[in-house]
């Protein structure tokens, strides 16, 4: 019974991913696991008003790739060069 979380970009796009994937981000993880709950741990929705949709999408892909990689499937994660900077900053922000 896999739980899912919803990540919402600045434009309002909703990305529904597995909880496990989302936990790759430390920030999201601490949000979701705090005891006595921030309200989002019950709801499972996190809004990122500062992250664009494209980036957020890439980030979600990254989450899944990361899990796969840690499970042994060593593929490559391709990043389009123009996204790199923003992706890095997002990663920093999300502590990924």
């Amino acid at each position, binding site marked *: 019974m896999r739980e899912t979380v919803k990540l919402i970009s600045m434009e309002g796009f909703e990305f529904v991913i597995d909880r496990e994937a989302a936990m790759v981000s*430390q*920030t999201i993880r*601490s*949000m979701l696991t*705090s*005891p*006595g*709950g*921030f*309200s*989002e741990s019950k*709801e499972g*929705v*996190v*809004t*990122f*008003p*500062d*992250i*664009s949709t494209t980036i957020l999408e890439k980030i979600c892909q990254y989450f899944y790739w990361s899990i796969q990689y840690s499970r042994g499937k060593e593929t490559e994660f391709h990043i389009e060069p123009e996204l790199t900077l*923003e992706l890095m*900053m*997002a990663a*920093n*922000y999300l*502590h990924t």
Partner: protein
Amino acid sequence: MMARTIDFAQGWRIMQIGITKLEKHVEGLPGNSINSEQYIKLYTTVYVMCTQKPPHDHTEKLYNKYCEVLEEYTKSTALPSLRKTYDDEYMLLRVLLERWSIHKKMVRRLSRIFHYLDRYFVYRNSLLSLEEVGLACFVDMVYNTLQRRVREAVIAIVDKEREGDDTDIDRALLENIKDIYVEIGMGNMKRYEQDLESFMLEGTASYYSRKASRWIQEYSYFDYIRKSEECVKKEKKRMSHYLYASSEPELVKKVEHELFVVYANKLLEKKHSEFREIAGGLEPITNMFKQHVEDTDGQDTAAIRKVIEVHDKYIVYVTKCLENQTIFHKSLKEAFKFFCSKAVSGSSLSAESLATICDRIIILKKWASEELSDEAIEKVVKFLAYISDDKDLFAEFYKKKLARRLLLNRDASYDHERRIITKLKQQFGGNFTYKMEGMVTDLTLSRQYQNSFDEYVASNPAAKPGIDFNVTLLTTSVWPSYKTFDVNLPSEMVKCVEIFKVFYEAKHKRRKLTWLHSLDTCHINGKFDQKPIDLIVSTHQAAVLLLFNTRDQLNYTDIQTQLNLSHEDLVWVLHSLSCAKYKILIKEPATETVSKNDVFEVNSKFTSRMGRVKIPLSHVDERKKVVEYVNNDRRYAIEASIVRIMKGKKVLGHEQLVSQCVKQLSGMFKPDVKAIKTRIEELIARDYLERDKMNPNMFRYLA
């Protein structure tokens, strides 16, 4: 990603709103939970403020603000509630617990929000992490001021429980409190150990020392031990609630120390004194014995056996329950000494009675096997070791009885006697028993002599004694001294004596034979009217009776001239023949005592159911003689010991001399101090010692 820069004041305003909300939230006020949007906002604010290019790089400021916030928070909320005084210890502890958990929550939330600081700033500058800051805050402000009160409260509760007031001990609370100490340590147990553990241990120690000082007065030794063990057990169980398992060995050690070690000496004393009381409990037994013995004097054996039983019981007691400590053996010994020295109906449970016991044990055939009688003897002997100040007296009595046993019981196996003597040797040393061994050896030798004598007689027709004749050879020094009666033997006997003398001198030229006729037995066949009866009598009695072979009637003076006995001895002999149980001779006048004017004749009417009758000689009370003998012996022993000591030391003070003397002689008997003094004076008179001219208390040895 955002492009705008956030001014610090601006940014902080945003933060403050969030923080206030959070504060309210952790206090439990409803409606203040932070949703994801707000969280993101706060988080982002921090993030941005930290990542902005300088001079807008507010990281450090943020960090400081963070610390401030926490301090403020603690000050305003936790402290006031904890500063109050509480009547009930529980209130204080509960409040503390509450505030601590709230604080923890707060710190956690806040640090999540400010987490970005942790990632780089804190790390790069080796500062305390946000969590650590939070903890430190609490520690400084709350914990340090409170912890003394807290632990006092804890120990008060624990003490209450110890007293048995179990009703509302909130063990969970205590456990949580314990956890606080550990958590505050932030990874190491130092805080726990220093603040809580050591205090608790001390408190425990003082509690038990108080208790112990009371208990030691109130309780008997065993109760005290039992109670203490119970307490140790309880403490072990109890401490799992308010202390960590690591503290257990220390705790147990402390408790034990207070209960046992500190009072070890006192406990020993207690044991000792209690034992004396137990020994004092022997008093009623003494009285019981007194009664017992007063009823029948043959009850000596029973009395002593009982005492030995009691003694055995107490030995088991001492070895098992009291750990066989020498101090108890000592008290037991003293108790029995004391008890035995009290006269049991006049005749003290003394050396003599013990010797009598041994004698009876050996003779009495009711022992199924020799092993049993051996055991019994062993017990008596052991017992003897405890009580006797007069071991040499016992030795003398024993020897006398041994002699009698040996002489009267020709066919006995001497192995049994030998075994017993070996036991005595183990107990008392060879000195004690060497004479006894000599006696037994004599008898075995005698038998050999007898055999060769018989051969000699058989092969030498001229040397025919005419009557059956057995000789037992005793070495003088070894046997107790016996009185010799010089009596004129009837001719038949004289012949025997002569023949043996010749035989013996051939073997040992230079030895002198002294005949002890008082110990002899003769079998005389008396032809009485009804039937002939064999009489077993002593030589003297035989001598008297044989006189009547030639004459029918004799008066006292006749007999005396014929036999050449002293008046006393003759009276004694005649008494046994005429006034005792078996009246072989008729005495005129028929009074109970023999006098010089009496006339005697054979009682031809004498008869008995049995064909053989033993006419005993009335028993002389040898006791006085033995005692006298031993006393003399002792005098010599004391003198010898004094001379020995003085020879070694040359000069010695009076007290030291006396004490050394006592020590030397303690193996055999307890010398009387007065006796020692007299002996010293004697020795001075005989020029063995002299008094020092300057100091009359010092003696010098004169070579």
